[in-house]
């Protein structure tokens, strides 16, 4: 079992993640031609201006209006993206199979970052349950996506601390990581790459066409 999930399935998940993302982006670019306004309106300057205002904490009005959410979402996303990349154990695996390695964070730090992702996921879950404007637009799939995003962190944490049978947890961890990678291109988790395009388009429409700001 371990051989399967840590061997071929890793390959498959990375191929699906990268291939699927490229496919989605490709079909978006093709569909964008049919949507006649997109290419004519796109502007590098205003697109970037908008992205910058929405990728820096508290740089937009709505972020300032919701400080707790802003802090939560930024720490969540920063930790979610950086932890697996800068994690020592992941790095060792990359080194073992590809002989490549890069800078890593101390394990104590990544451990805390993992806890932050889990805590923020719980915060998102509570928001979904408590706030009526979020609950109203919540589907079972939203809980599922949150679970898919949180699972590698939860299982990784348990495996690292060896709180439960290590081997099983490790298999579960790797599986959940693979599920997440595969899910990204085909679910709303694809906001990871669409973000830059939706923002750039709206920024261009507001800036280049309408002479106003969108933050």
């Amino acid at each position, binding site marked *: 079992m371990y051989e399967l999930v840590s061997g071929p399935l890793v390959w498959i998940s990375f191929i699906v993640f990268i291939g699927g993302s490229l496919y989605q982006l490709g079909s978006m670019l093709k*569909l964008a031609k049919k949507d006649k306004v997109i290419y004519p309106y796109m502007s590098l300057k205003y697109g970037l201006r908008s992205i910058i205002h929405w990728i820096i904490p508290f740089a937009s*009005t709505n972020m300032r209006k919701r400080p707790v959410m802003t802090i939560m979402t930024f720490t969540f996303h920063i930790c979610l993206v950086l932890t697996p990349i800068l994690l020592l154990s992941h790095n060792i695996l990359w080194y073992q199979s590809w002989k490549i390695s890069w800078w890593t964070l101390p394990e104590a730090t990544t451990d805390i970052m993992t806890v932050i992702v889990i805590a923020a996921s719980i915060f998102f879950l509570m928001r979904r349950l408590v706030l009526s*404007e979020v609950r109203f637009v919540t589907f079972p799939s939203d809980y599922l996506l949150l679970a898919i995003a949180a699972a590698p962190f939860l299982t990784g944490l348990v495996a690292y601390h060896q709180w439960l049978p290590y081997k099983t947890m490790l298999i579960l961890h790797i599986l959940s990581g693979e599920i997440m990678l595969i899910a990204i291109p085909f679910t709303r988790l694809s906001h990871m790459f669409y973000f830059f395009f939706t923002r750039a388009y709206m920024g261009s429409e507001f800036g280049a066409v309408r002479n106003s700001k969108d933050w």
Partner: protein
Amino acid sequence: MAEPARSIVVDPGLDETIKKLTPERIESTIKKVLTKEAAARLKVYMQTCVHCGLCAEACHFYLSHDKDPRFSPVGKVKQTLWEIVRKKGKVDGEFIKNCSRIAHTECNVCRRCSMYCPFGIDMAYLLLLVRRICAQLGVVPQYLQDTVNSHAVTLNQMWVKQDEWIDTLQWQEEDAQDEVKNARIPLDVEGAEIMYSVIGPEPKFLAQLLGNISMIMTVAGMDWTMPSFDGWDNSNMAMYSGDFETMARVERKHYEAAFKLKAKKIVMGECGHAFRGAVYDGSKWLSWKQSPVPVIHAIQFYYELIRDGKIKIGKKFEKPITVQDPCNVVRGRGLGEMLRYIMNAVCEDFRDVSPRFEHNYCCAAGGGVINCGPPWKKSRVEGNRVKAEQFKATGAEVVVTPCHNCHSGIEDIVDYYNLGMHVKFFSEILVEVMEIPEDMKAE
């Protein structure tokens, strides 16, 4: 939490039209709009929205209904487009009726929410798609459809006939001469610098605005003209009902009038949606990236006149006064700074609103909502309590609304919430305070 039941509104444009629908027609129409007309934006917006609800507080309908989630931008899309897509178009007439209610009467397509969504998802665009589906099925609030029919038949919004139009202009020219003795409304002058265009309701209900512009243009010494023929009306309700074919005819005619007069630019009266129709939605549909003739909104025009000293201000307006930033020219064109410049130029005691500029709340009348007529008035006014609170906080006695829809909508709000304010167009203040040179003054 159980949401309060919705009040029942009788509107034959919805109640009767859905009786003629068949499931096949609904399905094929939806399919056509969603696959032939919509493309990347629909797909990406649908897949990117993480259902986070962060856009909710952008919407005045949501805020004014004590945060009832059915009125949040994403809530409105959920009740309409998401269902349509999820059921692959297999929805019934009642559902389409509810879509029209939400998309036509509970959203002003003001795009405030796209400034609050972290992804910049254009919910107004999605709700316009819903309107498009409804319009293609013939399900449109009756009053709104009537204005569209008028556009389709007469190319103006209010069934104004050409002789009435010319009569009104001449009558207003004479009225203007009571103040400025050489005031004119020059008709069909080829090669004039400016073609001035207005919206249908001006000759119909607000003719004095035509007299005002005659005085202003004369005092400023402008080389201007107005068309006596079709194309004089720049308003466009078809853009808001979802009848984009008619929208395009109206806009084309408007520009053709300018081409025919060989005007260098079009200056338009104080209207937000007309500007949007001419410069954005209409031009886009006609495959022009930008308007083929420069279109200058009244705010910018007055700004230039005052800045360049073409109009001199005498005794400033004294009463405390505030302003409505019309979405379609402030969020839609960035004219907020110019608007403040002209307000301060003509008033002693200008009290700004908060939030303001791009972040101002819509008046809830725009986007065709006020044109849905009396049946929907109560829901529209109740949907904008925050606007009343915002104005009240300024302590002003007068509100300037450089947009026709804002004007009518805010009059209703002032009335309903007993704000005791006067609602005025900027030009009404301007003609009160501008200096009329001695040699132009009527005896």
